[in-house]
């Protein structure tokens, strides 16, 4: 079946270090979305990428969508404690109207 692989499962960083999570889809996507879930919270929409090769920035967060529209990444520069949480990608396959395929999530942990 269609799936989106997301790695790594966890990433431990010192505050101020960078963080990156990657998603790779088994199928071509119409769009890919990114969500953040704080501990004890619910997923919150961050951004949607639609175009091949698209790059979007939100302050210290940079989102990329691959040329083939099958992979994506989220990069956080100079992590802060407020960045702690789990980041999920969710892809919409080209042959779907609404059903997203969710990645497994990457948990960002700041080392004390």
């Amino acid at each position, binding site marked *: 079946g269609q799936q989106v692989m997301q790695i790594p499962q966890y990433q431990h960083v010192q505050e101020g270090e960078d963080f990156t999570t990657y998603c790779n889809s088994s199928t071509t996507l119409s769009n890919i979305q990114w969500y953040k879930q704080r501990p004890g919270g*619910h997923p919150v*929409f961050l951004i949607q990428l639609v175009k091949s090769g698209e790059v979007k920035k939100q302050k210290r967060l940079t989102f990329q969508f691959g040329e083939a529209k099958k992979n994506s990444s989220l990069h956080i520069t100079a992590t802060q404690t407020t960045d702690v949480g789990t980041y999920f990608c969710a892809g919409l396959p080209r042959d779907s109207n609404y059903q997203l395929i969710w990645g497994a999530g990457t948990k960002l942990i700041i080392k004390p």
Partner: protein
Amino acid sequence: SAVISQKPSRDICQRGTSLTIQCQVDSQVTMMFWYRQQPGQSLTLIATANQGSEATYESGFVIDKFPISRPNLTFSTLTVSNMSPEDSSIYLCSVGQAREQYFGPGTRLTVT
């Protein structure tokens, strides 16, 4: 965006009983989604609820176990029937189409 509320926020239930979770949206929406999220895991879609028609269930989920109602465009309920400890999870409702989804705060269910 949409503001979504869910009730109850959490519950502890006995094996064999049923729990109905309510989801209220502050605007009219065509589609509502019910997800399950087990601790430390990604989101799994249970079903899609459209107003005026039967819900569409994903593989592994059946109507007898997870009956859904959708009486109007702002409200839906999910019932978890004949519960077992394996049903312990967070249940989330969401709205949104292909571009972005908004989630309710979730219902944390523990079955003893």
